[in-house]
């Protein structure tokens, strides 16, 4: 009897120590990011967004400390992304996988998340099918169909555009945007008069812009990745004399990102874009975020990579609070489903069925406010679900 009591006491003591130990030891978040190479800027903005959240809300959740472990994937390299994700799970014992700037890397990470049953937060990769790769995955960034199909529908209806000529970059996201915009535009009664695809690293757009000008459409739809290209395209349009009053220019959000606006100058005026976030938005949640972000990033302004990182951390924190610090993959993803909150970008939610991001899509026009060029929103389509995800449900 006495032995039993001692045994029970010891078991209780070990149990309590074990639980206390579990409470003590930190939640490790493994982040495979493209910290070097072409996409380094995107990754560093994303990481800064995550760090800003941690700075604003403290580094302890549900009694456990948050620890970020970053690894460099180098670029679109799914073999490296997979290996790094595996090593994060096996060597570093991470509890959560997060980050993933590029789609092929997110797909590879998804495989590891599914096999290891780890909660995964995609903070950027925008191709719709990514979310299907693992049942433990949520996304806090954006999906291309979400924005582009909405834009296509808006353009043909409220936008009052009857014909469009589409120009996209010849790679995955470009193809996806092209088909999303075109299909929605046509479904809403519009007519696509032609299309062209730019080679991927194209530095000079004159020839393509000239072609568009020859056709003289009512509107031009553009999708190009960030970096140097949006400014080059904007300038080419001004040089070749595209009058934005006669030909509406409809672009994705990256066309009028901060660096692009700075470089294009007044040639950017009147470009209409559809996107989910702009750092200049005046809502108080965003203004606070931008101020904190500038302190963390050494003076830079946030962009949509940053907000993906910021909201990704929010999803992690809220899920952990709900599970009281339990990092089991199924528990966390169940806690994340249906999460609703007010982000600097506006209201957003994690869809309880598809685990994908649901948010507002803003239609903006570049205007001069004071002395600055600003993407001024003039229309909002609220709480848009990823249409491609909805279609997958019906199958």
């Amino acid at each position, binding site marked *: 009897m006495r032995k039993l009591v001692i045994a029970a006491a010891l078991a209780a003591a070990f149990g309590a120590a074990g639980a206390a130990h579990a409470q003590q030891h930190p939640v490790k978040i493994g982040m495979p990011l493209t910290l070097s190479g072409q996409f380094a800027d995107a990754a560093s903005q994303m990481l800064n967004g995550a760090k800003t959240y941690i700075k604003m809300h403290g580094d302890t959740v549900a009694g456990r400390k948050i620890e970020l472990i970053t690894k460099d994937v180098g670029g679109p390299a*799914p*073999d490296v992304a997979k*290996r790094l994700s595996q090593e994060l799970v096996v060597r570093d014992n991470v509890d959560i996988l997060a980050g993933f700037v590029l789609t092929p890397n997110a797909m590879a990470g998804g495989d590891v998340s599914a096999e290891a049953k780890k909660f995964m937060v995609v903070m950027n990769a925008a191709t719709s099918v990514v979310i299907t790769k693992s049942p433990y995955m949520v996304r806090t960034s954006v999906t291309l169909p979400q924005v582009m199909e909405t834009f296509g529908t808006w353009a043909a209806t409220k936008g009052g555009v009857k014909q469009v000529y589409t120009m996209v970059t010849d790679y995955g996201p470009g193809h996806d945007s092209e088909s999303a915009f075109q299909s929605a535009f046509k479904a809403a009664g519009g007519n696509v008069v032609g299309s062209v695809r730019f080679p991927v690293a194209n530095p000079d757009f004159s020839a393509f812009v000239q072609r568009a000008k020859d056709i003289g459409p009512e509107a031009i739809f553009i999708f190009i990745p960030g970096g140097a290209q949006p400014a080059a395209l904007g300038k080419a349009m001004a040089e070749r004399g595209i009058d934005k009053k006669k030909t509406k220019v409809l672009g994705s959000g990256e066309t009028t990102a901060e660096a692009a606006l700075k470089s294009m100058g007044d040639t950017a005026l009147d470009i209409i874009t559809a996107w989910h976030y702009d750092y200049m938005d005046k809502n108080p949640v965003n203004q606070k975020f931008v101020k904190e972000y500038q302190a963390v990033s050494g003076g830079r302004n946030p962009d949509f990579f940053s907000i993906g990182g910021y909201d990704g951390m929010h999803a992690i924190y809220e899920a952990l609070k709900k599970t009281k610090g339990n990092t089991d993959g199924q528990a966390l993803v169940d806690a994340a489903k249906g999460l609703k909150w007010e982000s600097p970008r506006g209201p957003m939610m994690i869809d309880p069925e598809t685990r994908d991001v649901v948010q507002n899509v803003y239609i903006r026009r570049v205007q001069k406010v004071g002395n600055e060029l600003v993407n001024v929103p003039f229309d909002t389509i609220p709480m848009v679900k990823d249409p491609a995800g909805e279609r997958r449900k019906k199958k």
Partner: protein
Amino acid sequence: MESAKDYFRREVRWRPLEIAFWLAALLPFVAAPSYLSLASQVAITALFALSLDLLVGYAGLVSLGHAAFFGVGAYSAGLIAKHYWTEPISALFISAMVSGMLGYALSHIIVRFRHLALIMLTLGFGLLVHEAANSASALTGGADGLQGFRVPGVLGFKFDMFGRTAYAYSLLVLFVCFLICRRIIHSPFGLALRGMRENATRMPAIGAPSQAHLRKAYTLSAIMAGIAGALLTHTTSTVSLETLSFGRSADVLVILILGGAGRLYGGILGAIIYMVARDQFSGVNPQYWYFWIGLLLVAVVMFLPNGILGGLAKFSRRTSSTSASARS
């Protein structure tokens, strides 16, 4: 004066250092079990570098577009798996044949050129293959990579998260291809290649048909690169445009030069050092590891000319008065 047969027999004999090296390759299984995924990718890169060595170090043809064959092998393996044939060994043979055929076709053009024209032509063909894969996105998945396939395992062993099967598989294939390479180098064909590298004009004079030999070397090199690419597909169940990129071609050339071209083990050594260094540097400093790698490359060139093995050979020649053979 030893006979030709005796010469070859002497060259082909295994040196103790070589045996030690291959035994040491088994160490990661016990000494570093959490690094096996990395080890597997090192083995694959080593095979790729070995294939380039046949071309650069032995045939004397510098190529900046060798990733074309690596990628073609990788995509072949991926497409085979996508169409429900997931047995890897047979897929390896088929992928090798596909990249071999491409190599054979291109070799007719490539081997007629030298110097900068050769380098730029190989670069150009590499870039064209890359573009073609990007455009044919219905077949290849384009920038998002090939999706919708999985290679579960080889010979009954599952490809797991720890990389055990992956490393065993890659190491075995590397060893087999290495043995084949070794045989080729120490054969009359291999000697003819080296002769052509040293003096291309004299070789036809002694009856060695140079263009044909070079084409053969190019095709063999393409086959081996294709095998390496297929290995990557099998061990990771991913294929992307990066396998065809200029970056990969440039990386493998850097690795070969680092280790020392024309010394059989140069590619393997270069792959080990470069990839482990890169992994360690980027672990410590994920954003700026380029700096340390650059420093490593500069240091190696300044202190060890002709790559690490070249520098070591010079060092050993200086310290030992008798040396068996000038170059291995």
